[in-house]
C-alpha cells in the first residue's frame, strides 16, 4: 500500500515467514507484536498472504462427511432462523435484564426463562416433561455473571452473559456441564452474545437439578483437552424455576 513506508529487507522477510507460519516461540511473539503495532509490517504480511493464496489451487477438494452442515446449524442456534424483529425484541429484553441483573437474582432468572420459553410466532411447545430450570453462573466478586435457562421439554439451553470479561482473539469462553459424576462435559465455545444450543438426548439427561454449569477461559476455539484447561471464571448450579 502506497501510504506505508517501505520495510527493511529483514522486516519483509520476517513478514513472509510469519505469513507462511514458519515461526515459533519468541520469533512468533515478536512478529505478533509487530503486526499489532506496525502498520507497515501488517501490510507486508497481507501482501505475502496474498502472494501465497494461489497455492490453495494445489489442494484437491475433499467432500466432507455428511452431517457437518447440520452440526453447524445446531451450533448457530435456532433463533437465527427467526425474523429480525424477534431478535430486536430479545435484545431489548436482554438490555432490560442487564439492568435488573445486578438487583434481583430471582427476577433475572424468571426473565431468562421467559426469554427461553416465549418464542413469538412459534407454536407453543408441548407440555414440559419436567419443570424448566435456571442457574445463576457467577464468579468470585461479581467479576463474571451469567444466567442459564434450561428447558428439558425441547432440550434447549440458553445462556445470557450479564457481566463477562471479554475474551481476546486468542481466547474463548467455554461452557461446561459438571453433572453428578463430577466429570466436566463441554457444552461448546460461547459466542459473544447469548448462547442458544439444543442439547443431544444423552447429555440432556445429565442437566438435572443440582448439576453445575461453569464457564472457563480457554485458547481460541476451546479447550484442547477433554476438560477445562484454563481458569474457571464462573459457576452455578441448576435449580428449579
Amino acid at each position, binding site marked *: *500500500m502506497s501510504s506505508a513506508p517501505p520495510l527493511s*529487507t529483514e522486516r*519483509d*522477510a520476517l513478514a*513472509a*515467514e510469519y505469513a*507462511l*507460519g*514458519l*515461526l*515459533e*516461540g519468541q520469533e512468533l*511473539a515478536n512478529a*505478533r507484536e509487530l503486526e499489532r503495532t506496525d502498520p507497515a509490517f*501488517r501490510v507486508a*504480511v*497481507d*501482501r505475502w*498472504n*496474498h*502472494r*501465497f*493464496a*494461489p*497455492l*490453495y*489451487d*494445489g*489442494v*484437491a*477438494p*475433499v*467432500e*466432507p*462427511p455428511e452431517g*457437518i*452442515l447440520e452440526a*453447524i*446449524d445446531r*451450533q*448457530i442456534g435456532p433463533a*437465527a*432462523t427467526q425474523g*429480525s424483529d424477534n431478535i430486536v425484541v430479545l435484545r431489548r429484553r436482554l438490555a432490560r435484564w442487564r439492568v435488573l441483573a445486578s438487583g434481583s437474582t430471582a427476577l433475572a432468572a424468571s426473565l431468562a426463562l421467559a426469554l427461553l420459553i416465549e418464542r413469538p410466532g412459534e407454536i407453543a411447545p408441548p407440555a414440559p416433561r419436567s419443570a424448566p430450570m435456571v442457574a445463576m453462573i457467577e464468579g468470585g466478586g461479581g467479576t463474571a455473571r451469567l444466567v442459564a435457562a434450561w428447558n428439558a421439554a425441547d432440550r434447549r439451553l440458553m445462556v445470557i452473559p450479564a457481566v463477562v470479561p471479554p475474551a*481476546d*482473539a*486468542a*481466547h474463548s469462553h467455554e461452557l461446561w456441564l459438571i453433572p453428578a459424576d463430577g466429570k466436566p462435559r463441554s457444552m461448546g465455545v460461547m*459466542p*459473544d452474545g447469548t448462547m442458544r444450543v439444543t442439547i443431544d438426548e444423552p447429555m440432556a439427561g445429565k442437566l438435572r437439578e443440582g448439576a453445575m454449569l461453569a464457564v472457563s*477461559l*480457554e*485458547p*481460541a*476455539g476451546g479447550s*484442547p*483437552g477433554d476438560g477445562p*484447561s*484454563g*481458569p474457571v471464571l464462573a459457576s452455578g448450579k441448576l435449580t428449579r424455576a
Partner: protein
Amino acid sequence: MSTKLAHRNALPAGLTFPSRRPLGMTEAMALVPRHELTPLLRAVASGDRPALAKLYARTSAKLYGVILRLLRSESDAEEVLQEVFVSVWRNAARFDEERASPITWLCTLARNRSIDRLRRRQLATAPLEAASEIALDEPSAFERIDAQQEAGRLRTCLDELESRPRALIEAAFLDGATYSQLAEREGVPLGTMKSWIRRGLQRLKGCLER
C-alpha cells in the same frame, strides 16, 4: 468427486519433494466464481440461513481439503470445518470484496483455524499464556488484486525457484510446518533451513515484483 484420490493427496507421509505439481486453477476454484460467492457471503452477513447452506455446498469440499491437508486427521478436520462455517456465519459482514476474493478469504480463515489447532496440539500441555501466540482467527485484509493474474504470476515465479525451496514453501503454507519441524524432517540445522527458505522467498519476491 474422487474422494479416495483426494485423501491420498491430502495425507502424504512426511515431507518429500514431490514431483512438480501443477499449480493451475483447479476445477473447484474455477467452478465457484467470485460473482457467485460474493452475493452469497453478503446474504450470509444479513442472516440468510439458506445462503449459508448454499455457500457450504459450493465451498466446503475446497475448505475441507485445505483443512485436512493441514491437520491430517479427519475428526479434527471435521471440527475445524464446523468452526470455520460458524465463524463465517458470525463474521461474514467483515468480508470486503474490494480487498479479497471470497474463496481466498474463506481459505485463509480455514488455514488460520487449522494452524491454530495444529499449534495448540503441539503445546497441549503448555500453560494458557502460550496460546496467546497462536495465529489470529481473522483473515487479514488483502489488497485488491486480480486473483487469476496473481495466480499465474506466482506459478511462474515458483517455477523459477529450485525444487527444494519451492517444496519447502509449499510445505510451510499447506502442511503448517514450522522452521524447526522442517529442519528436523530434512535433517539439517535450523540455520541452514532458515537460509534455504529465506533465499527462496527473496527470489520469489524479486520475481513477483519484476
